[in-house]
């Protein structure tokens, strides 16, 4: 069985061009995490599936333009995120809504005793976070992206990504432990501004 690392290595060594084998390798390597990322953005399974399909469609059409194959992962996640933003601008449909179909694809093969958190709980807690926090956090967890990669992908300064990741983790933890607290946090953090941590703890020492 091929490991992710060996597949990634093959992807990097594949020649450029519209190669079906290369396409298949990329799909096998990334489609699940792309879907998970899409779920964190759109919440509905139908929209998440559609975003994932669309991303690979674009990859099939334009992937040959990708000169550095090692950037395929970053390219795919960036493309999916931009597609999500484009669709939301277009029809305002891809937003978190109460009536959106909820995720029901729990891992049936894994018993509850095997894990501390349920995927549904994590997804719901993630959904309470403002997008500015949710997106970098999901990327961090899903593909183990370094904060510098996330900054590059989202085109935001490194310091902002660090701040958002740190704050997002705190908020996620609160959301999983106390949903009411997370709602309050979400209301306070729904603008585009990142509150410098120093403002909240003047003079505080750790």
């Amino acid at each position: 069985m091929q490991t992710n690392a060996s597949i990634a290595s093959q992807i990097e060594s594949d020649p450029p061009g519209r190669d079906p084998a290369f396409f298949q390798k990329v799909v096998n390597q990334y489609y699940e995490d792309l879907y998970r990322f899409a779920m964190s953005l759109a919440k509905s399974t139908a929209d998440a599936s559609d975003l994932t399909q669309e991303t690979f469609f674009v990859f099939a059409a334009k992937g040959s333009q990708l000169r550095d194959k090692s950037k395929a992962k970053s390219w795919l996640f960036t493309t999916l995120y931009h597609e999500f933003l484009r669709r939301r601008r277009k029809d305002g449909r891809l937003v978190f809504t109460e009536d959106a179909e909820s995720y029901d694809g729990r891992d049936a093969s894994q018993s509850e005793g095997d894990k501390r958190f349920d995927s549904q709980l994590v997804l719901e807690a993630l959904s309470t976070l403002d997008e500015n926090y949710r997106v970098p956090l999901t990327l961090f967890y899903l593909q183990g992206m370094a904060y510098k990669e996330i900054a590059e992908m989202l085109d935001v300064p490194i310091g902002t990504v660090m701040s958002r990741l740190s704050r997002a983790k705190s908020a996620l933890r609160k959301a999983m432990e106390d949903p009411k607290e997370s709602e309050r946090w979400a209301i306070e953090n729904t603008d585009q501004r990142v509150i410098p941590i120093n403002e909240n703890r003047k003079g505080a020492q750790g």
Partner: protein
Amino acid sequence: MNDNRADEIHGKGEQAITDMVSEMTNDDIKVILSVARPNGLDVADPMIAGALERANSDPSLWDWFVESQSWDAEVAKALGSVHPPAGLRERILSIGEAQLTASRNERDETIETPSRTVQKTPWIAMAAAAVLLVGGTFFASEFLRGSKTGDSGGGIAGNVGAVTPLGKGASAQFANWQTDALQSVDQILEGKKESLPLPEEKVAWAWIDQQVPPNPIASTSSTPGKAIGEHITSGEGIACLRVDDPLIGHYVLFCFKVSGTLSHLAVFDGVREIPNANASGVAVQQSDRWQTVSWVEDGRTMMLFFFPTDVKDPAGWAEELMNIDLAAR
């Protein structure tokens, strides 16, 4: 540590970073440690290395870091157990391979005057792609609407004033299967989905029956779909598509022109719940762009749809194609 300070640190040399980290509060250190990936992936990063060094010399900070990494691992594991729906990978591969083939064909083939049959697909894709460059889907559909007659599609502005919305306006809600069919046609128009080889118009209805067979036990006396099929024999087939989706189910699309007006018929397997259906089970709705009429016929759910801006009287156009009186139903 605020954002600017973190950015400032990244502009420094390794020794300067070490010095700055040594002066940080534990809260600042926690911010840095919270972006460290598991398994020491970031130890080469001077800022994270400096923060780890601080944590090594402070048991409370180290305990916090260990607990934080453990929590991260649990969250990552939970997210990793979210599984895509069955069949998604296969659909992606199928669509991607079709696109790869189409891209190769577009590069290799000589573009000729479109004729009616299978060659229409690349023509549709190319025409749509060309006009999308200047105006998006709306213009692509205009191009298609005017293509056969040599009409430039300029009559839209004149038609807009004559539109008579049938349904509940742009807020009308559509079921997933309806939305999927509308999006599929959009994707055909945009050249993102390829048509199957088109059957001759005279056998179009038989082709639909073959793809989504009627249920003889559930046969209905009213047959608007069959009436549309008869109209198609005197019209022009444009594209057809078969969709098998684990979420939506199975359906076929037939895009056609009758009297120069582009319309679409979607036939879904089984009896679906039709949102906003009237007492007779017929729903006439209008989204932002589409006029739709949905009903059940012979155990199958059908939807006729078109751009209301294409005709002076959308209700009249639907009634003509379906050979029914919508007001009486």
